[in-house]
């Protein structure tokens, strides 16, 4: 069956070694004749930047490469560091890059050398890695997400990966799958029983950030509606207020966003909320400013911090975190909350207590 894809593609490249794979067959049959398909010897070469394009990163997003992944699928979250209070998140890399185009996205720098949208036909091998992890750590729970280097659900109408994932995780008591997205592409998730082992999470930003910076994403209200539908279908849901941008009137807008969220979804039905401030390396900031020269969200009062990233100066962002935290506490005192890529000291200023050890927090979030 040919499907309508929400995001445009110029071409699909399939690595010869996987041309008969289930994933390649599925993608080609669902696209029909709408997008030209080429077969290539090495998908890694096909994923390289198109130097002749005016914006190689944008061009890369419009090229899908179905290939074999050579590296392990499972890794620690790349945002994790000894400098920060972390959440113990594990990342499963089943795809790379994203058809949406947020001006602040770190992938603009992280994937500059291989910007094509890669999906890995041997993704079932990831399941062996997960089982090995469970055998190695018999007493722990893990939260494993596919939304770090890609959006978990963008192109799911083509790839259908989510169904296999939900099915696998539904049979693993100590694993929690997190599908992180800015879409409302949830059709494939309907009609499967996740048995409490799949959580779908959305980045949520105020309308003004969505309009100026989150290109091709679903509107915040559409994300919330999608979350409500999935809750009704047995999924867990969570929200990431990340990046929080300290623009003028940010406090008013973020508090309104919280009101909108809790008007739609009862706080006790939300598994957790995370917060993180806008952070950009100098290289990312330069790329983002070049690609999105009229986005006012990229020119706030960010200063170069000791971790080498531009962030809103400490008092400003901590004040904004605290304001959001105060409202979260009023609405949902029992709702687990954590900060992403912030020091233990900032975390303590915001929550009033020292952050948990990453493994403990990870275990707690995975077993909710």
């Amino acid at each position, binding site marked *: 069956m040919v499907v309508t894809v929400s995001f445009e593609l110029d071409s699909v490249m399939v690595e010869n070694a996987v041309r008969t794979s289930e994933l390649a067959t599925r993608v080609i049959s669902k696209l029909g004749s709408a997008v030209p398909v080429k077969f290539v010897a090495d998908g890694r070469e096909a994923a390289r930047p198109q130097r002749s394009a005016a914006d190689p990163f944008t061009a890369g997003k419009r090229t899908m490469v179905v290939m074999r992944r050579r590296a392990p699928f499972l890794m620690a979250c790349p945002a994790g560091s000894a400098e920060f209070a972390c959440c113990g998140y594990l990342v499963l890399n089943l795809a790379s890059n994203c058809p949406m185009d947020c001006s602040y996205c770190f992938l603009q720098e992280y994937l500059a050398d291989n910007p094509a949208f890669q999906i890995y036909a041997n993704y079932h091998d990831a399941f062996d890695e997960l089982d090995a992890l469970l055998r190695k750590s018999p007493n722990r729970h893990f939260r494993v997400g596919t939304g770090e280097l890609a959006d978990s659900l963008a192109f799911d109408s083509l790839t259908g990966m989510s169904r296999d994932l939900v099915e696998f995780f539904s049979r693993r008591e100590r694993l929690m799958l997190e599908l992180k997205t800015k879409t409302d592409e949830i059709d494939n998730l309907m009609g499967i029983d996740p048995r409490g082992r799949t959580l779908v999470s959305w980045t949520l930003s105020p309308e003004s950030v969505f309009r100026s910076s989150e290109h091709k994403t679903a509107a915040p209200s559409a994300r919330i509606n999608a979350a409500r539908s999935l809750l009704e279908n047995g999924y867990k849901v969570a929200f990431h207020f990340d990046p929080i941008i300290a623009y003028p009137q940010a406090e008013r807008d973020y508090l309104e966003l919280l009101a909108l969220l809790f008007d739609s979804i009862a706080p006790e039905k939300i598994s957790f909320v995370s917060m993180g401030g806008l952070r950009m390396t100098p290289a990312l900031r330069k790329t983002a400013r070049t690609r999105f020269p009229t986005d*006012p969200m990229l020119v706030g*009062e960010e*200063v170069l911090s000791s971790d080498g990233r531009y962030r809103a*100066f400490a*008092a400003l962002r901590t004040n904004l975190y605290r304001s959001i935290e105060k409202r979260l506490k009023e609405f949902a005192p029992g709702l687990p909350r954590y900060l992403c890529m912030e020091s233990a000291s900032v975390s303590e200023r915001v929550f009033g207590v020292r952050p948990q050890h990453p493994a403990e927090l990870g275990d707690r979030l995975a077993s909710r």
Partner: protein
Amino acid sequence: MAPPDRNAVLDLAITLRLRTGQLVTALELLEETALREGQSIAGILAADSIRRAIRSPGSRPQRAALFLARLRELRYPRLTRLRESLAAEISELRLPAQVKLALPRNLDSDEFRIEITVRSNEQLKEALEALARVRVQLARIIARLGGDGGDCEL
């Protein structure tokens, strides 16, 4: 860049004889401020604080430096207000010379450095007593660095 903006920048560069590096910095600050505030570059250059800096007494290099400082204040208004207010609070503490308080560069963190330089037990005693005397004020400065104190309107 729109012609009125271009002309305003050119006039300024000639008046202050900005060096290449200074011109690049000025352009970046002007463009970013204009984008965030929804103003034209010519409009920003016409602001009182900028015009006063350009026409201030002193040599051209001094005026150029003052001009860039004023531009930075427009680019980082909340940061500037907090930094100036904290600097004033530190100055009011009237600590002995052997005690130096250093705010984090660009207020990028909540770390506050207290440096004591002594050559004798007497000086050490004096420094520690001075710090103990202003403990409450120091605690307040540390809290404000971490966002307490309602300094940064959101």
